């Protein structure tokens, strides 16, 4: 009897959210799997048929422009670098803001959250303008304040890649900061006080108290942040003006986008998105096992 009530209660808690999710996601998900096994394309948009795994073979074996493996590697670098800075900057700022002695916290918090609040399209284009060689404010600041040579941000592949990463780090750190701020509140002050009495250093407190206790909240944010960043199309597309220079600033999702919307290769695009899906799934499984995210802390 108790068991039944327990189950009913859990069901009542969890089911409403899942009804919405399953309703919305299952059909597109299955559709996409079927599509990835089909030849749906410009010429076969209505009379498409299942052709097996041919689209997958194509992804891995046929040469593409730009090269699939290079783009894959770039996407991983993009994701790792972005996440690293999002988390490090976000958590650091949260720690700084969480100190008792700081005045004007509300003002700083609000200013720091602005990049999250501003509409992305216009600010991405503003950043692109800021990276311009002759007129961009970044080069103006570098040359006039620091006496450096101007950098051709958007003309060379490496610099362009750095430019899009800078833009996305700017856009993404406030989110992590807000999460970290929330997470820090779950740490009772007395833990720190006890540690101070024991003479623990700043680093020890961070390692032994702060990080373990914000982990349950940060891990989901980092996992999902990784997934979102991996699949982020807009920022790279806007700042690099659709892949400039010379199609060398692309992520995996740009491939999907181009395949589906520019070349109408729906089957191929669906297969590509399945590949992305599997990559992210494997990552999440490993990451969550390592961080024990599904288990409770207490």
């Amino acid at each position, binding site marked *: 009897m108790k068991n039944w009530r327990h189950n009913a*209660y*859990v069901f*009542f808690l*969890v089911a*409403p*959210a899942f009804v*919405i*999710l399953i309703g*919305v996601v299952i059909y*597109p998900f299955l559709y*996409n799997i079927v599509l990835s096994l089909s030849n749906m394309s410009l010429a076969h948009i209505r009379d498409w048929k299942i052709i097996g795994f041919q689209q997958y073979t194509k992804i891995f074996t046929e040469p593409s422009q730009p090269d699939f493996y290079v783009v894959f590697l770039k996407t991983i670098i993009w994701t790792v670098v972005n996440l690293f800075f999002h988390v490090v900057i976000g958590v650091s*700022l949260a720690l700084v803001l*969480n*100190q008792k002695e700081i005045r004007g916290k509300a003002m700083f*918090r*609000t*200013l*720091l*959250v602005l990049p*999250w609040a*501003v*509409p992305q*399209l*216009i600010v991405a284009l*503003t*950043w692109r303008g*800021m990276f311009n060689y002759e*007129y961009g*404010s970044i080069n103006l600041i570098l040359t006039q304040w620091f006496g450096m040579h101007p950098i051709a941000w958007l003309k060379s592949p490496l610099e362009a890649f750095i430019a899009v990463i800078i833009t996305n780090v700017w856009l993404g750190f406030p989110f992590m900061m*807000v*999460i970290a701020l*929330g*997470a*820090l*509140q*779950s740490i009772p002050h*007395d833990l720190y006080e006890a540690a101070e009495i024991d003479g623990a250093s700043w680093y020890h407190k961070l390692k032994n108290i702060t990080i373990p*206790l914000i982990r*349950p*909240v940060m*891990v989901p*944010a980092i*996992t*999902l942040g990784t997934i*979102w960043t991996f*699949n982020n*199309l807009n920022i790279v597309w806007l700042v690099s003006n659709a892949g400039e220079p010379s199609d060398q600033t692309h992520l995996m*999702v740009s491939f999907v986008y181009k395949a*589906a919307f520019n070349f109408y290769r729906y089957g191929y*695009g669906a297969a590509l*998105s399945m590949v*992305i*899906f599997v990559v992210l*799934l494997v990552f*999440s*499984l490993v990451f*969550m096992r390592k961080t024990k995210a*599904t288990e409770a*802390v*207490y």
Partner: protein
Amino acid sequence: MNNDKSKKIARISASYIVLIIFSLIALFPVVQVFTISLRPADRLLSTSLEIIPKDASLNTYKILFTERPFFLWLMNSTLIAVVVTLTGVALASTAGYGFSRFRFVGKKLGLLSLLVTQMFPATMLLLPMYIMLVKLHLINTYLGIIIMYSATALPFCIWQMKGYYDTIPMSLEEAGRIDGCNQFQTFYKIIFPLAAPALVITALFSFMSAWTEYVVAAQILQDTDLWTLPLGLKSFEANMGSEWGLYGAASVIVMIPVVLLFLSLSKWLVSGLTMGSVKG
């Protein structure tokens, strides 16, 4: 002792420097967006660094409210975002609690499947999503878009709530149970208030997902009377003929409710007292 004091002063001054530098970095591009809104003749960029252009005018803001249905978009977006926020908070706070506190069959799978929903590139989901919504007669309805937005926001919110509940000791609930609360009462009288920071994050995140989303809205809302802010903003854009002045002005205004919401909620985001006082 003296050493300690000077250390503390050094730490605080370093903190201020970090905060000021990052605030400036955060502010600078946003100020540029504001500058765009002041420039006549739709100049997205400028060859000078001045913040207030010589020929600055607030005309764009006037046009926005008098000649364009900006107010309507603002209202539509507010309505949708508020409902999505309430849905997000209601469903994520309960589901997250279920995942945090109970063992049940399929729990891990359930948590994982939440992530799965986020792993697909959105571009490939548009076609099946549209077909599905047509069949359900949800095209051109707010209900359709609210369901879609809730579905996008929920996975993160549930995970995040679950993570936060995980940090609240079980002993608190047991104490509540002893005091004669039933299961539901312990949840919403004891745990719910303690999770205030996480609820704030859930609310902010749900609100932002609805407030800024464009791609799904463009597919679902085909009637201009139903348009939301991102759709409205997009209409200032045209291939090589964008009204950047209006776009900038609208962007500035779009930020205001977000900032206000953040300001009003951040009281609970950083309310450290709850946890300390109960746990102590």
